[in-house]
């Protein structure tokens, strides 16, 4: 049953991916695995946001560049309990591990499923591989948060401004206080 589920999700992801790739004008490959095996290319995809006067905030990263430490470390592809990045809990896809998104050789880049390496600033493209509709909606401004000017310079909050990439479900938060009931709204003497 579990296996079935995994197969289903993989297929789903592959479908979403191919749709996205066709949309973004990249030649879609029949097999996702094949794509991953190709030589990594250094070209980034098309600009994320076309509108002028827009800013997308850079992701907040504590230890960038990652290569500082990782270049000296051997690659360990085994799924295991992390001993250093303990703040990370992976609760995202049904399957997958660090190297689904991080490039094992160039630690300062993210890796798309087709093997393209992209900047951390363009992480939305990575998310968009599976969440293609969301990426499109985000580019149109109907998904995600924007601040600034409705008719001018604005800040497009990134995927990562709101979602934790490793466990993207929203955390429940404490609500602001409830309004006062009408019975409680009474005259009070000025101080």
């Amino acid at each position, binding site marked *: 049953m579990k296996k079935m589920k995994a197969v289903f999700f993989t297929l789903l992801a592959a479908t979403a991916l191919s749709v996205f790739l066709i949309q973004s004008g990249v030649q879609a490959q029949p097999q996702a695995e094949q794509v991953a095996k190709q030589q990594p290319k250094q070209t980034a995809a098309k600009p994320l946001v076309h509108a002028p006067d827009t800013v997308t905030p850079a992701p907040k990263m504590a230890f960038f560049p990652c290569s500082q430490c990782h270049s000296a470390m051997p690659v360990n592809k085994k799924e295991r309990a992390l001993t250093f990045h303990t703040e990370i809990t992976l609760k995202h896809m049904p399957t997958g591990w660090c190297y689904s998104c991080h490039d094992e050789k160039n630690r300062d880049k993210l890796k798309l499923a087709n093997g393209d390496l992209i900047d951390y600033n363009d992480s939305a493209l990575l998310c968009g591989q599976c969440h293609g509709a969301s990426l499109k909606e985000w580019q149109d401004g*109907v998904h995600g*948060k*924007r601040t600034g000017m*409705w*008719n001018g310079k604005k800040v497009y909050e990134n995927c990562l401004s709101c979602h934790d990439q490793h466990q993207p479900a929203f955390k*429940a938060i404490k609500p602001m206080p409830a*309004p006062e009931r009408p019975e409680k709204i009474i005259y*009070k003497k000025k101080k």
Partner: protein
Amino acid sequence: MIKNTRKHPAAIDLDRRTFLKGAALGAAAMALPPADADAGFLESFFQKHFREMSDEEIKKVIDRLEKDYSKQFSKEVKVKATKPMENVVFGYGLDIGRCIGCRKCVQACVEENNQSRDPQIQWISVLKMKKGAKMADFQTADKYYQPEQVPEPGYFYLPVQCQQCEDPPCVKVCPTKATWKEKDGIVVIDYNWCIGCRYCMAACPYGARRFNWGTPNVPAEQLNPNTHYLGNRPRPKGSVEKCTFCIQRTREGRYPACVEACPVGARKFGNLADPNSEIRKAMEHFRVFRLKEDLNTKPQFFYFFGVKSNRAEGGK
């Protein structure tokens, strides 16, 4: 009706002295201005309707108000009268699939728009509704929810504020024309012209209008000094107020405060006349609906379901 009155919390203690004082001053109270009126009273008493004033007259009124407010709050308060932009009709979109009911919008609105803290006035009401319940039946809604965390499993949230109707019933019923629809679609109120009859409140199908039952109270240090005459300037006791799409911000191109405060990006705002605006894109992408469409008020406030459900932990 008279006999069976339960004690209402607002039934303040009326001691005898109040009455003696009252009996003596009662007649005077009807004819004379309230005790806290200042020298500018006559000017404000005879102030004309906002729309009947020339630009110069408006400037004079604004100068007076700025002086009054600055004195009252001991800091410089700016009052603008920015006019609507050309070819702009504001529209608002709210993704109730995403709203988590945190009331951050309410808080931001109160602070931006100088709503009275006590007696409390809030322009936005966030309704908690049961998933699967009748959506048109607001009686299943709860405005006063206060759980440890939101969203709560099994519920969705529906924030309601002024819907800036294309055909606003409140404007139609106002006996003094103190409220009207501006060219950019914002329904505004001239607080100085409103007599406080509250017919508009009876007429609003969205419960969006608020009355200053007592003297509004905003602590000086919390007052937002960037105000608009038709928006967030300090209001007088006894007048009606409501959401203006943050007229003081949006007429200068900025997003409303609630849009910027929403932590889940559920709030969308833009120019309905611009096909590339976020609101127009939202209308293309999603199936939008408006509240109480059967009343034909044609709100410029659209709701939609951007995702199937709020996906927060617990919200499943």
